[in-house]
C-alpha cells in the first residue's frame, strides 16, 4: 500500500540515485551547450577565403595591407611587411562605426555655394596633397582663381636605414610618423636619442631620453652617420643635417605639392572653403583657418568622422574612406576592399567635376596597359617609363617611397576603374 512515507522515500531515493547516473551531468552540459547556440547569436558568414592587398590611407604612413576576405567581405587586416597600427587593424569595421557620417545634403551645399559672395575667393583644403585628386583640385582652383591649401608638409624625406644615430627633437618616430613596419625593420641599426619634454611612447622606446638639450652640440657628439629629425622636418633641422653631411644620404628633398601659403592669404578673403578629409593627414588648427574666412562663408567638409573639421563646417557631406575608397598615395594605388555606404559623395566630383572631365579627355590610357584609373592618372606600383611620362604630363610625379609594397602581379586581379 502506498503511504506518504513510501512516496517520500521513493522521491528521495530517486534523487540520490540520480546522482550516481550521468543524467544530471548530461543535463548541465546540454544546458550549457544549448545556451551557446541560441538563435539570437550572430553566425559569422562563411565562404571562400581569399586575400586582397591595398594601401591604408588612414594616416600619412601609408602601410601596405593584406586583407583576409570571406567572399568579398574583409574579415581581418594584416600588414604586408610587418604589423599595423590599431586603427588600420580595424579598418574593415569603419563602415559600421556608429558615429560614421552617413548623411548629408549635397544639393543644399551646392545651392549655398552658388549663392556665396562671388567677390570672395574659392579655396580647397586638401589634407593629403600628392594624390591624383590633389592635382585635380589644383587644376580646378587655378581655373577659377581659387586657392589650393594643404597642411605644412615635411621639409625633407628621411632614410632611417642610412643612419647609425638618430637624434629626434620631439618627432613621434614610433607612433605613426613613418610606416611602423619600415621603422621597426631597421630599429636595431640605429641608436635613438629623444629630446622631448614629455616622456612619450617614442621616448619610452628610445635608447636615451632627454627632456631638453642643445640639439646641434648633441648631434655633433653622436656616432655618424647622424640623422636629426623633428616633427615637420623644419628648415633649421634640414640645415643641420646638411651640415652633418647627411644630405642625399639620411635626408633627401621632399616633393613639392604646389600649395598656396595659408598665412599669406588676407583675413576674411575666402568665401567658399571645401575641405577634403577623405584621406586624413596633418591638420591645420581651425582658428588659423577661421580667420581667413569671410563673414557668411560657406564651408563644406567631406568627412567620414564627425570629429574633425566636420565640427566647424556648415555642410558635412559623407565621403568614402579606407578601405572603401579608390585613391592613390605617393604613387601607389589604394584599391577598395569593400563597397562604400550608400549616399557618399565623391569630393573630386563635387569640387572639380569640370576639371575631371577635361583631364579625362586629355589622357587616354591604353586598354591593354594593365594600369588602373582612379580619376585620371595612370598608376602602377612600380612606375614604368611611360607611366612616369604620364605622371609628369599630368603634374603628378611624386617621389615614390623606397618601401615596395604592392607588386603589379598582386594588383593584377584587382581591376578597378572609375
Amino acid at each position, binding site marked *: 500500500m502506498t503511504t506518504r512515507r513510501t512516496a517520500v522515500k521513493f522521491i528521495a531515493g530517486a534523487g540520490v540515485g540520480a546522482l550516481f547516473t550521468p543524467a544530471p551531468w548530461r543535463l*548541465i*552540459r546540454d544546458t*550549457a*551547450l544549448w*545556451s*551557446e547556440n*541560441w538563435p*539570437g*547569436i*550572430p*553566425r*559569422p*558568414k*562563411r*565562404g571562400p577565403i581569399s586575400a586582397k592587398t591595398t594601401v591604408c590611407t588612414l594616416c600619412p604612413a601609408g602601410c601596405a595591407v593584406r586583407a583576409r576576405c*570571406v567572399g568579398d*567581405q*574583409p*574579415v*581581418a*587586416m*594584416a*600588414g604586408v611587411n*610587418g*604589423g*599595423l*597600427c*590599431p586603427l588600420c*587593424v*580595424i579598418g*574593415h*569595421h569603419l*563602415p*559600421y*562605426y*556608429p558615429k560614421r557620417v552617413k548623411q548629408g545634403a549635397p544639393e543644399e551645399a551646392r545651392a549655398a555655394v552658388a549663392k556665396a559672395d562671388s567677390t570672395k575667393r574659392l579655396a580647397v583644403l586638401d589634407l593629403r596633397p600628392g594624390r591624383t585628386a590633389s592635382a585635380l583640385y589644383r587644376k580646378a582652383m587655378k581655373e577659377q582663381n581659387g586657392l589650393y591649401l594643404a597642411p605644412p608638409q615635411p621639409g625633407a624625406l628621411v632614410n632611417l636605414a642610412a643612419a647609425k644615430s638618430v637624434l629626434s627633437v620631439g618627432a613621434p618616430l*614610433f*607612433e605613426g610618423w613613418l610606416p*611602423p*613596419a619600415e621603422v*621597426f625593420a631597421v*630599429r636595431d641599426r640605429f641608436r635613438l636619442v629623444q629630446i622631448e619634454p614629455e*616622456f612619450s*611612447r*617614442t621616448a*619610452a*622606446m628610445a635608447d636615451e*631620453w632627454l*627632456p631638453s638639450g642643445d640639439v646641434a652640440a648633441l648631434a655633433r657628439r653622436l656616432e655618424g652617420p647622424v640623422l636629426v629629425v623633428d616633427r615637420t622636418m623644419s628648415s633649421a633641422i634640414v640645415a643641420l643635417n646638411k651640415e652633418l653631411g647627411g644630405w642625399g644620404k639620411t635626408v633627401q628633398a621632399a616633393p613639392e605639392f604646389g600649395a598656396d601659403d595659408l598665412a599669406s592669404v588676407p583675413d576674411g578673403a575666402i568665401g567658399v572653403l571645401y575641405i577634403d578629409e577623405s584621406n586624413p593627414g596633418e591638420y591645420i588648427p581651425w582658428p588659423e583657418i577661421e580667420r581667413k574666412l569671410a563673414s557668411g562663408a560657406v564651408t563644406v567638409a567631406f568627412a567620414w568622422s564627425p570629429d574633425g573639421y566636420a565640427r566647424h563646417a556648415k555642410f558635412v557631406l559623407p565621403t568614402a574612406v579606407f578601405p572603401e575608397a579608390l585613391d592613390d598615395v605617393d604613387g601607389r594605388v589604394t584599391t577598395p576592399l569593400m563597397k562604400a555606404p550608400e549616399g557618399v559623395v565623391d569630393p573630386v566630383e563635387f569640387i572639380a567635376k569640370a576639371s575631371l572631365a577635361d583631364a579625362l579627355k586629355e589622357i587616354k590610357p591604353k586598354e591593354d596597359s594593365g594600369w588602373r584609373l582612379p580619376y585620371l592618372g595612370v598608376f602602377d606600383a612600380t612606375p614604368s617609363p611611360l607611366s612616369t611620362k604620364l605622371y609628369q604630363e599630368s603634374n603628378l610625379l611624386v617621389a615614390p617611397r623606397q618601401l615596395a609594397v604592392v607588386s603589379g602581379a598582386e594588383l593584377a586581379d584587382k581591376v578597378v576603374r572609375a
Partner: protein
Amino acid sequence: MKRYGMHIDIDRCNGCGSCMVACAVENNIPPVAGADDRKGITPIRVYQIDNGEEYPNRRTAFIPMLCQQCGNETPCAHVCPQQAVDVDPETGIVGQMAERCLGCRYCMAACPYHARYFNWWDPKWPAGMEAALNPDVAPRQRGVVEKCNFCHGRRHAAMEKAAAAGKKEIDPADYIPACAEACPSGAIRFVDLNAQAAPAESFRLLERLDTDPKIYYRSKKDWVKRNG
C-alpha cells in the same frame, strides 16, 4: 611535439594597443558600451608600469599580459568542474571551451595572472557588422569565461592547410596568433619553445609559483625586471 609560447620584448613595446585590437577582431569580441577595466574582455591587455620616481627620472614600460599558458599544475584546469579547460599535450596550449563552461568563475579565482575574463554581455554588433566577423571563431553567449588560446581558429586553419597538402606538421608561417602578427614593433614573437630557447635576460611572471608559464618577457632595464 610542440611547446608553443611567446617571447615578448618589453623594451620594444610602446603600448600602442594593436595587439589588443587585433585580438578582439580575431576572436569576435563585440564592442560593449558598459565595459570597463573589470568587465571588459581583453584576452591580451597591455599594462603600463613605472619605476616609481618623479619627473624627470620617471620611466615607464608596457607589459602585454595574456594567459601565461601554465604548463605545470595548470591552476585553471585543476579547478574547472566542467572540464571546460584543457591542456593540449601536443602543443602545451591551455584551451577554453565556451560550450562546456558554466560560468562558475573558479578558474578566474585560481588564475594567478588575472588573465581570464567573464563574459557579461550577449554578443551584439552594430547593424551590418556581423558580416565582418571572423568565420573561424564562434561568438560566445554571456555567462562564460574567456581567455587567450593562442588563436585556436588560426591553428585549426593551419592544420587543415597542412592536411590538404599531405603534411603532418603545420608550417610555422601559417600559424601566428593575431597579436603577434599585428604588433608593429615586433615586440611579440610567437615561438615553439622546444625549438627556440628563451632569449638572454628573459624572465617569467610569478615564476616562484612554479606553474611553468610559457610567456617569456625580456628587458635590459633592471627596474622592469624587478617589477616583473
